[in-house]
């Protein structure tokens, strides 16, 4: 579960916005129970989509700028990016099949 790429305010631009691959970022925090429910699902999907979609997590407690930039006020929030643009924003805990569907659309 700990293997998912963690992005920070500093690395966000390079890792996600400038990413050649489409990307999904899971905005989460240690204090948030439902985020911990989504965590393992995101980790599984990160493996399944390796090389096709860059799947990353951002701890909103340690990184304050990026969540503000995207107007995030609820977590978990999952944002899908393509060529640096937001394609879809999903708020709240999702099942694996719901996320899988959203990821398929990104390909």
């Amino acid at each position, binding site marked *: 579960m700990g293997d998912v790429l963690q992005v920070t305010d500093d690395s966000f631009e390079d890792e996600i916005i400038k990413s050649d691959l489409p990307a999904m970022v899971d905005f989460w*925090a240690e*204090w*948030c*129970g*439902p*985020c*911990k*429910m*989504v965590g*393992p*699902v995101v980790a599984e999907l990160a493996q399944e989509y390796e090389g096709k979609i860059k799947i990353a997590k951002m701890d909103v*407690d340690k990184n304050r700028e990026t*969540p503000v930039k995207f*107007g*995030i*006020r*609820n*977590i*978990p*929030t999952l944002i899908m990016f393509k060529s640096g643009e937001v394609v879809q*924003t999903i*708020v*709240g*805990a*999702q*099942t*694996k*099949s719901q996320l899988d569907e959203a990821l398929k659309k990104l390909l």
Partner: protein
Amino acid sequence: MEDLIIIGAAPAGLTAGLYAARARLKTVLLEKLSPGGQLVSTDRIENYPGFPDGISGFELVDRMRRQVEKFGLEIRIQEVTRLELTGDRKVVVTDQAEFEARAVILACGAAPRKLGIEGEEALTGKGVSYCATCDGPFYRDQEVAVIGGGDSAVEESLFLTRFAKKVYLIHRRNELRATRLLQERAFASEKISPVWDTIPIRITGSTAVEGLDLKNVKTGEVSHLPVDGVFAFIGYEPNNALVRDQLDLDERGFIRTNHDMETSVSGVFAAGDVRSKMLRQVSTAVGEGATAAFAAEKYIGSLE
């Protein structure tokens, strides 16, 4: 063919699983997300016996999960898409597999009820929330409104005072329904301001919540309250989509059972928040889970 399929791995389903595993029933425990249900959104459980200092919802669930797994029952992360409950062979279809079992326990829980007002849908994720423990920290030194008057509304209001500088507790009646102890804490908090006899009629804001239009139910007077966030805790809706047409439900959609947790269809049991009852707590859910598993075991035995 399985003996028993349990749907939902929160306190009711995990307890049913624990009893079923120890009864050596051939059991499948299905969960669509990961164990915990609504409990994981709870900051601190203070009324589950055995934890005098309280325990976080997430940790309590994690302990229950470990206890179930210790007795050899694995939780499978699969989402149930269809149920056929009549007859001696119950069919459970998931997004990954199809199971058959002699008995089924429905422990699929409930979800927070929506306010059903203008602006709610559009501003969900932009200041409308149903989980204070998730989203409270985004409201440092801001003003928020909590809608409701029960235990959840008051507990979450108290939690929000850690971050927000002001919490308006908006309730349609002129007294709270919450446990007395929680009421005392709320009234003692300088940050919580109750707004009585009032319902929200519209959430305003375009890219983020800017305020709430309120209506006084006694005078009919409409007013506006500027807030940065709206937290709704006005009760629960049962997760009954899969069984709505197959089982006897109460007028609010919760599953009716007898004292042994059996539903209107024999061999089908319900436990926890999805069940029609007076009190929805971890302490009631675990008792019902245990009873449902025991009743299911008896039922399975009676088939042989």
